[in-house]
Each structure stands twice: as structure tokens, then as C-alpha cells.
């Protein structure tokens, strides 16, 4: 996926989202560049998680949730094009706030979980071994688990479990990975490990991270977008957004006057 500076890998166009009658996104138009980290910041309830969940069509899995507008992945519409929700989610991986290893599976099977769902097209044993190893390496977990791949994933620490979930998302070789407050439930050391990992991931894919931690956004992201009450207020290179915001509401938020 070669994307020029001017052509974003992922793009939302006048995106609106609802929970029943409650409108949580209002005409959000935003670009996400390839090989870059985009942070979405804003106070609780501003719609940043919903925006993230619209990017891989997870929003619609909630009863009574609906979406209007569109999202383009590499120029292809994910809502009105040929891609179905399953295909979209295989191209755009996701990691949640709390680690979600599958408790009945081993570490190895967790990482391979996304590979085995195409019945009949599941890769051969050797290929799977290779994919699992590469995914765990990219998630910075290989050296810690390589001798216990057959053990239950629930035996890992919280930070390890979260990196396992990142490896699981990477195994299907997505072009984009979405991180929904990935360090919210982790201790400072594990948080640092994940942040370093995010930095490495941007060398190869697009990363979108939702965070309520502004220092984290400042540390890990190339671009940042500020949301308020379902609206995209401002998006800019991270340093610009934090030091020289255009909108007074952005300034109030990043200087800690509310939120």
C-alpha cells in the first residue's frame, strides 16, 4: 500500500453515527496518513471511541447503532463499496481498552486466531508458525513467550496480554491498526512498552490511537485530532495542535482548562 503524502490511507467523509436517536458523531471528515500515528483526543463522551469503531465497522455491531456518511480505505468505500464488514475488519485491526485474550486458547492459538477463520484457506502449519513468530516479534512479545507458546494466554501479565492482542491484530497483516485507549488499564511500565511499540508500528502501517491522556498523544502521535460533542474541532500535526491551536476550544482543552 503505497500512499503519497497528499493521499491518505484512510479517510472519513461527513461521517455521522447514532445510538438509537442519540447522535454521537456530527459530519466528521478526517484523514489518516499511512505510516503515521494519528491520535484522537477529547473529553469523555466526545465520540472519539465511536469514531474509531466506525473505521472498522464495529459501531454497527451494537444494537440500534447506525452510521451515515462514508469511510474510504485506500480510496475504496468501506460502507458503500464491495467490501463487507468482515473484509474491512481483516484490513483494519483493532485493540481494545482492556486486554481480550481468548481464555480457552493458548498464546500461539490466540495469535493465529485471525488466520484460521477463512475455512479452507487456512495456511499450512509452517506458514502459521512463521506468521505467529513475526506477529509476536512485531508486538515485542516473542522473546518473553517463545518458550511457552502452548500455555494459556491468561497466564500472561496485563501488559503482555495487551501486546498479545496487538500481535493477534497484526497477524492478519492489516494496513491500519486502531487502538482504543490501549494503555488505560495498564501500569506505567507496560504503558511505556506499548508506546514504544506504537512508535515502531508506524514504520510499517497506519496507527490510529484514541486516548484521554494528552501527554500520551503528544508522545506517540504525528498528527492529532481534537473532538468535542461529536464534532471534529481541529486536526493538525501534533506539535502544532498542542502549542499553537487554531480553535480556542482546543486551546482550552490542551492547556487543561476543562476535560
Amino acid at each position, binding site marked *: 500500500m503505497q500512499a503519497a503524502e497528499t493521499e491518505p490511507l484512510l479517510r472519513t467523509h461527513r461521517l455521522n453515527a447514532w445510538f438509537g436517536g442519540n447522535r454521537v458523531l456530527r459530519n466528521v471528515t478526517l484523514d489518516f496518513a499511512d505510516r503515521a500515528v494519528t491520535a484522537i483526543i477529547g473529553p469523555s463522551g466526545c465520540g472519539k471511541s465511536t469514531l474509531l469503531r466506525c473505521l472498522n465497522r464495529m459501531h454497527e*455491531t451494537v444494537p440500534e447503532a447506525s452510521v451515515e456518511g462514508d469511510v474510504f480505505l485506500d480510496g475504496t468505500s468501506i460502507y458503500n463499496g464491495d467490501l463487507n464488514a468482515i473484509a474491512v*475488519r481483516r484490513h483494519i485491526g483493532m485493540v481494545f481498552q482492556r486486554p*481480550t485474550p481468548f*481464555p480457552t486458547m493458548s498464546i500461539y492459538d490466540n495469535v493465529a486466531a485471525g488466520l484460521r*477463520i477463512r475455512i479452507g484457506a487456512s495456511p499450512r502449519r509452517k506458514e502459521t508458525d512463521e506468521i505467529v513468530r513475526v506477529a509476536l516479534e512485531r508486538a515485542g512479545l516473542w522473546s518473553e513467550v517463545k518458550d511457552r507458546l502452548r500455555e494459556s494466554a491468561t497466564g500472561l501479565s496485563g501488559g503482555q496480554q495487551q501486546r498479545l492482542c496487538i500481535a493477534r491484530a497484526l497477524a492478519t497483516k492489516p494496513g491500519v491498526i486502531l487502538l482504543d485507549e490501549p494503555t488505560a488499564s495498564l501500569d506505567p511500565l507496560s504503558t511505556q512498552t506499548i508506546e514504544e511499540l506504537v512508535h515502531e508500528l508506524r514504520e510499517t502501517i497506519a496507527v490510529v490511537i484514541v486516548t484521554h491522556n494528552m501527554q500520551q498523544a503528544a508522545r506517540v502521535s504525528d498528527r492529532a485530532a481534537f473532538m468535542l460533542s461529536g464534532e471534529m474541532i481541529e486536526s493538525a500535526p501534533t506539535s502544532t495542535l498542542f502549542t499553537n491551536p487554531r480553535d480556542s476550544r482546543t486551546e482550552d482543552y490542551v492547556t487543561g482548562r476543562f476535560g
Partner: protein
Amino acid sequence: MLGLTYVAAIIATLPLLFIIFHLLRQGATFLRPSFFTEMPKPMGEAGGGMANAIVGTLILIGTASILGLPIGIGAGLYLADRRGSPLATIVRFLSDVLNGLPSIVLGIFAWEFLVRPFGGFSALAGGMALGAMMIPLVTRTTEEMIRLVPASLREAALALGYTRWRTSVSIVLRTALPGIVTGALVAIARIAGETAPLLFTALGNQFWSTALREPIAALPLQIFAYAISPYETAHAQAWAGALVLIAIVLIISLIARYATRARYAGGGD
């Protein structure tokens, strides 16, 4: 206050300890290998065994499980999936009512609708009555176990590109499975000792029979028949039979506990 609860906790375990102690004292001496292999001797004669009743009870449990487990688990899956729908609310309520139904009432109904129309007592009617008792129990535990699976796991599977169907089977059901197995075993343990429904359906049998369309012997029925007889030797056999029955229930309960433990240990694969 804590002292009182301590006393209550001790008293709560006393009946079981007393029963087991008494059963061991009364029944253990008669519990020779022949008890498991021989047929009952005529009333009043010493010796003999309950081979037919032990096998009969296992056949009844098997028949009840073949009927009760698929229906109960299926209904539980439905309730967990459609928890708010009108049908689910009705089914859940009726399950709870059925769960509290006195087993003698169930036995009378089984006689009316399974025994009388088909011209006689049978193992099949007994198994069906016991199966009907299992259904509400299995339904409710299956539903509870499925609900215990965190919604975040379902989300994680969907986000990986799993279809809804595949998410339900290989993530949700797979995660809930040890709990469902435990629920099934608890239900089996509960019906293993049921007597009242069998009086109206399986009837009991002094002879060896494994035919589903014939009356069949069962441990609870045999214990009942021996206990109310006037013979000392028969009483001894009743004690031994009770000991075997409680051992079967205890073994099933222990397996259930083990399955539950494996669940919380994470299991591995």
C-alpha cells in the same frame, strides 16, 4: 454475630455428614462385590445384589440426558441470545416454574401422557420424565454461563473478522463450555436419585431388563421397595443400595467441581 454464623455453617453440613456416616455404618458391611454383579434374591433371603437396579439407573440417566441436555442447552442458547424478547421472557419464567414443580406432579403427568396411552410402564417413560426435570435446570445454567462470557471477547472476535456465527460457536460457546458441562452434571446428579416420577413411569423390575419399552429397575425404587418390607435382610440391602446411590451422586458432583475448577484455572489447551 460471627460466632452464630459459624455455628450455622457447621450445622448446615451436619445432615450430609450424618447421612454419610450412618450409611457407611449400616450399608458398608453388605456392600460386597456381589452387590454389583448379582440379581436380587427373593424377599426375606439374605445376600444377592442390585445389578439390575444399578444398570437400570444408568439407563434411565442416559435416556434422560439424551432428551434433556440438547433441549436444555438449545433453549439456554436461545435465552442468552434473545434475552429481552417476549418469547425469551416467557420461556425463562416457565422454566423457573417447571424447576420448582414437585416431582410427584411431574410423575402423575408422565403417567397420564406417556404410560397410559402407550399401554404400560416403561424405561422410556421414566427417562422422559427425568429428562423433563433436567430441561429447566440445564436451560437456566446454560443461559447464565453464556452471559458470564465477557462481551469484550465477542467484540474482539468480531474485530478480528469473525462472523457472528463463528464468534458464537468458537469463542462464546467454547468459553462457556466448562460451565455448561458443570450445569449438565449437576442436573444429572439431581435426577439420579429421583423416586417419585419413576413410581409412575419406570415402575421397577425384579428381573434383569434393559429394554426401553419394558418396566425397568432403578436404585431409588429398589431402595424404597426394600426399605418398606418387613425383612431385616431386605433393610440391609436398602442401606447398601442407598450407599451406592449417594456414591454415584457424589462422583458426578466431584466431576462437576473439577470441570468448574478447570474453567477458572484458564485451562490452556
